[in-house]
């Protein structure tokens, strides 16, 4: 697709790109729900049915949605709720309480939040409650209708469910489930968690998703541009190298979030001058995603620090992963220097110590035990947090690495 062709369209190309970026960014940054959740049809139906029973018939239910991170648990729940709230009866009846294990870190805060979300601050006022259960029962009682025969159904959503289980005595969970069992009030408890392994229901649909994620909705103002865009995406998906990158990405991680991140990187490269995603962009994004962070950090070390790392690597090889201290490393380094005639790396011990501490700061080495206060710094035992392949790879990339240092690293025994 040429640039000129786009310019013939009804809207200026800059406008189109802006629109495109806006729509896709909203989708990729998890703001917009997809129109129809894919691959979770059965779960969707089941959950919808359960929640409708609570909302309409006043039946208590509890559901735990388990799945790995980024599998679409929240998305599923949100789309179910969206569908549920379209029904008139539900809309006027159902109350919602959204709790998150990250935010409500203990039961006291959680209870406050429940009160707030049910708009019952005034009712509670300055009342003092004997126990948690009493308080919760009071809250639910307060929700009863005028005739006191039936109370309004409440939906409790507990995100990061596993964190609630860490609360002291699990009072909140115990009480919620108790209420749902004993039919005091109709409540539905929905927990979302990633803690248990779950069927990987999303795996087949993964590559197909790329297209549905990226294609534009029908109501895009400039149809011509939209068509071109969609076609270019389709062409992109057929490209061999792109498919390879996507497959590799899929093999690394199967959650949607990381896919979103990946596509976001592609999208951010779309500009007025270059209005389509090219295969090269996808490859570049893949490169960014798979970069080995530690190797990148090794690239920025000074020669002295790199030499120390090589010395540690040799010590690790010789003593089979036993921890080492600075004296040993320095000794190893000095042995290397003695074999060299030129003494360009002849540094004083304190300078070496400073380099060593910098490595510790970067957490490339880590002290073995906590009793660091009692031993001198140069005798503190350390472990190297890198493996040989990472070191060798970093050496290959290192700018202007002296040959003798390289050879020293390659040699079997320091």
């Amino acid at each position, binding site marked *: 697709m040429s640039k000129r062709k786009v310019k013939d369209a009804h809207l200026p190309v800059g406008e189109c790109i802006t629109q495109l970026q806006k729509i896709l960014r909203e989708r990729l940054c998890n703001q917009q729900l997809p129109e129809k959740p894919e691959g979770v049809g059965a779960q969707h139906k089941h959950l919808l049915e359960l929640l409708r029973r609570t909302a309409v018939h006043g039946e208590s239910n509890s559901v735990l949605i388990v799945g790995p991170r980024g599998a679409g648990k929240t998305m599923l729940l949100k789309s179910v709720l969206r569908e549920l709230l379209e029904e008139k009866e539900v809309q006027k009846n159902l109350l919602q309480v959204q709790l998150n294990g*990250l935010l409500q*870190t203990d039961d006291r805060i959680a209870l406050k939040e429940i009160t707030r979300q049910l708009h019952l601050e005034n009712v509670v006022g300055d009342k003092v409650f004997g126990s948690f259960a009493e308080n919760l029962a009071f809250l639910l009682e307060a929700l009863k209708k005028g005739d006191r025969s039936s109370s309004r159904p409440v939906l409790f959503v507990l995100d990061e469910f596993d964190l609630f289980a860490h609360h002291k005595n699990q009072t909140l969970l115990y009480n919620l489930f108790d209420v749902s069992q004993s039919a005091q009030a109709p409540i539905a408890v929905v927990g979302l968690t990633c803690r248990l392994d779950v069927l990987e229901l999303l795996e087949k649909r993964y590559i197909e998703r790329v297209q549905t994620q990226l294609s534009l909705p029908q109501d895009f103002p400039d149809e011509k541009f939209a068509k071109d865009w969609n076609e270019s995406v389709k062409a992109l998906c057929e490209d061999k190298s792109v498919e390879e990158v996507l497959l590799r990405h899929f093999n690394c991680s199967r959650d949607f*979030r990381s896919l979103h991140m990946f596509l976001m990187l592609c999208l951010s*490269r779309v500009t007025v001058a270059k209005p389509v995603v090219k295969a090269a962009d996808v490859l570049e994004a893949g490169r960014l995603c798979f970069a080995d962070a530690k190797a990148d950090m090794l*690239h920025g070390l000074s020669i002295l620090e790199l030499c120390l790392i090589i010395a540690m690597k040799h010590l690790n090889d010789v003593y089979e992963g036993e921890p080492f201290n600075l*004296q040993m490393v320095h000794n190893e380094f000095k042995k290397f220097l003695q074999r060299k005639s030129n003494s360009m790396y002849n540094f004083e011990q304190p300078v070496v110590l400073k380099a060593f501490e910098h490595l510790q700061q970067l957490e490339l080495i880590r002290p073995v035990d906590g009793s660091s206060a009692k*031993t001198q710094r140069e005798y503190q035992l350390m472990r190297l947090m890198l493996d040989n392949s990472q070191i060798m790879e970093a050496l290959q990339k290192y700018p202007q690495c002296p040959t003798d240092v390289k050879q020293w690293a390659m040699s079997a025994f320091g």
Partner: protein
Amino acid sequence: MIARLQQTGYEEDRLQRVAKLLPCRELQAGTLLSIMGQPQQYSYPSVFIYGHRASGKSHVMHILLKELELPHATVSCVECVSVALLFEQVLLSFFGCDAASLLPRSPSLSDFVRIYRQQCLEMPAKQTRYVVMEKAELLRDMDANLLPAILRLQELVEDNVTVIFLSEIVWDKFRPNTGCFEPLLLHFPDYSKGELQQILSQDKHPSYSAEFYSSYINILLGVFYSVCRDLRELRHLAALNFSKFCEPLAEGKVKESDTHKLWRNIEPHLKKAMQTVYLREVSSLQWEQMQQVEEKETGPLRGLSAHTHVELPYYSKFLLIAAYLASYNPARTDKRFFLKHHGKIKKTNFLKKNEKTSNHLLGPKPFPLDRLLAIFYSVVDSRVAPTASIFSQISSLVTLQLLTQVSHDDQLDAPKYKCAVSMDFICAISRTVNFDIVKYLYDFL
């Protein structure tokens, strides 16, 4: 050449100005800008930027947000000793002091998110708001739920907000046990030697030519580059030593173009700076004073290291020497070193070289008080009575942290100690009392 930054939604001349302020970081700034997108568009919820110290992380972020006038809150995690300060700073920068004062005492994350949402209803974001967390590695030490929550702040507060983390440590070391929202990772590579040269040459002295300053930077990098690549540190060293570099020029001894002579003049000076200023053994003020003193009296340099100047009582020195010997010699060799008539000990037998690793590699070993005193009596030349004063000197050595007590305090009858001084230090001490310590060390036989 200044590469052009491009991003629709921003004024062209502003981007030009930004590009000028960020030398050698155009590529990173461009990537960042393209991820941020146009001001009103959503951006990725959290971005994690990592790179070495002084690789321009904060600088790029600061310039971008300030010059493009985007709403932002910069939080340094060093300053935030409690989460309350962190929340307050974010609310203050986004919504003004009224919002910040709504926070209750010792607020929880739940309070923060609630107030943020409330304020957000009144002032919805027209542009993406940015929270910049500097030194983000410190977030790991705060509440366990803080980092995962901040990572998904966009989702929790339902606002157009993006959190940017800056750290020296790679993301792998951050990930909590149960996983969390994965941020978008961005690496800032270190400056190459050429780039360092280019940046450092920018702050040239007004009274000298640019080439002259640039040649000075070249020499400086020649000395320090193999040890230190930290731009900030190099800049400090450059500023401190420049006057020395110009000295022969001011005296009229050499011309600006005579780089070799200038190099000969400055090189030993820089080497010395490596041992002192770089290690922070002297402050920059002391260093300047030292330079002036040096000109007047060209006598031998006094030892710069602070730890060679510890004054101790006479017996304490011997106690320390004895402790050092006890820590670094195996107990079975005491007989050979300190007994006048130790009988026949075969030299081959004595030097068991199968003990390959020397004690100076493994560090000091603990020893009981009895052994310390026994060695002390044999090394000290006069007869000393085991008085309370001797014992109190031992305990004051412990308070000075020259010795460390290994056993628990409640073991009164047989306390154990370790010597905690370095080889250089003990050599300096033994020289003052005319004791040749090397002769008594097993490692150096």
